[in-house]
């Protein structure tokens, strides 16, 4: 009995330390290069799909829907089963799913940075570094962002509901941050917008949560067409 209590206490202590790591994983100052990407927003502006705060809101809602249907299954699976084997398998599948080159490269560059940062920061989870080391030379892993994020979340003890919600949160945060730099909204307007969209983001997280990767699909196919145009832009601020 007492043994059990000691054990629970230890886990709790471990949990509270892990919480600091979990928060750091979601912190926008974690240097993963998210600031270099606009999730197709810059191309959408130049295609006059987005021209002001009103259709910016719609753009973000549609982007979140597409993120939920396409990427949450990968976050879910790797969070609940954060093993080298499962992660590598899902990385290969996602590489075949992201057929839009701009989006695929953005996913790879953000995922690789996140894995590199995590391996050197979260030293309490040594398997992160070892998984990265084995994969880096193998050539079979592309380091796509969603499975890397799920893997780290899982290893940091985050539950899968939180990690999927967090993935939607980060997507929203990063696209809104891109919108401020593209001069579509000011910093205060951006904060108000983020708060307004939160209930919609929650509804979409719930809708697409806990699905198998076989269900991954695009629900806003227009975005792939538009984001694919990013390389054709004569002048641009962002990588994607």
């Amino acid at each position, binding site marked *: 009995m007492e043994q059990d209590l000691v054990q629970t206490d230890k886990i709790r202590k471990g949990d509270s330390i892990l919480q600091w790591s979990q928060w750091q994983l979601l912190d926008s100052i974690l240097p993963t290069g998210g600031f270099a990407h606009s999730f197709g927003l810059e*191309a959408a*502006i*130049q*295609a*006059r*799909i*987005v*021209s*002001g705060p*009103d*259709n910016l809101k*719609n753009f973000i*809602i*549609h982007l979140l*829907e597409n993120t939920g*249907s396409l990427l949450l299954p990968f976050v879910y699976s790797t969070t609940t089963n954060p093993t080298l084997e499962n992660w590598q398998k899902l990385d*290969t*599948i996602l590489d*075949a*799913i992201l*057929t*839009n*080159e*701009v989006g*695929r490269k953005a996913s790879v560059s953000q995922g690789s940075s996140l894995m590199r940062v995590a391996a050197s920061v979260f030293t309490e989870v040594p398997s992160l570094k070892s998984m990265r080391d084995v994969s880096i030379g193998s050539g079979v892993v592309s380091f796509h962002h969603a499975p890397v994020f799920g893997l780290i979340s899982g290893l940091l003890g985050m539950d899968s509901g939180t990690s999927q919600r967090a993935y939607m949160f980060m997507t929203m945060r990063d696209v809104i941050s891109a919108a401020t730099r*593209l*001069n*579509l909204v000011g910093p205060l307007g951006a904060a108000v917008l983020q708060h307004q969209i939160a209930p*919609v983001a929650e*509804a*979409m997280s719930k*809708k697409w949560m806990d699905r198998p990767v076989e269900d*991954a*699909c*695009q*629900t*806003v*196919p*227009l975005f*792939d*067409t*538009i*984001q*694919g*145009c990013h*390389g*054709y*832009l*004569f*002048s641009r601020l962002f990588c994607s």
Partner: protein
Amino acid sequence: MLFTGSGKRKERVGREIEMEKGKVVVEKVRRKSTVTRSFSKYPLKFIIPRKAGPSKTDAVWIYSLTYGGGIVSGDSISVEFTIGDGCTAVLTTQASTKVYKSLGSKCSEQVLEARIGSGALFAVIPDPVTCFATARYSQKQVFRLVSDSSLVVVDWCTSGRHESGEKWDFELYRSTNNIFAEDNQPVFLDTVLLEQSSPASIAERMHDYQVIAMVIIYGPKLKIVQDQVQENVKRMMSQQLHIPSTSLGHHAKTSSHNCLTRPAFIASCSVFGPKGIGVVVRIASTTTESVYRFLQHQLAGMEPLLGVSPYC
């Protein structure tokens, strides 16, 4: 008893739905691509004209059609294609595939599974799918290739009978295109799902575009076509995309003004697969005709392979 939109076919109920299997095998017979087996089950029918192009090109053309001119609620059509080593086959239609109104929550489905042999070319170049209001339709195409197979897939869907005001009014459209290389290695996995139940309606997500299309061009026989399409699309789009003078200032004009200047046709190309062996073009357009014109121009380079230029 319930009768469907076409008035001819009896509605199939619940579990009684059976897979209507079709099968086509193309093999070399006296060094010419030849249909050696062709079998289809109602409501599907294949028409294989003896002569589709000049006799010196080695290609068979297969027309797929459905009785009643479309797909009825609850129809479940499944076809298997085998394109033997070195053969060329074209699968096409004579008009758009109409998916009629759904009865209840029933979904119609079409499944195509194809094996494409070494040095073979399979071109799936149909007219678009048009889903009527309330229709529910799901389509799945799986292509199994070896390292030197070639493949062209055009997969497209319109907003419905948009001339009569039906714009993205169907209930559900799902289209899956998967390509696997040897050892079941996934090369291209794509599923588009348009469902009315999301927070935003399908029409909102489409921003006034009435057609979405995807063109997959894969394999060694199509290198020239790939290069041309990439170059053409890049040139076309570079002219269309620019920083709008209104968006970067704080004096944005009304959104209706910006709608007018939005490109009526958007396309982008991406390379995929090992060593960039595939190219996928994604298109959004306000008219079906402009997509036909685009396909005509961009796939014209296939004429020497198919005998006739696609979509002419």
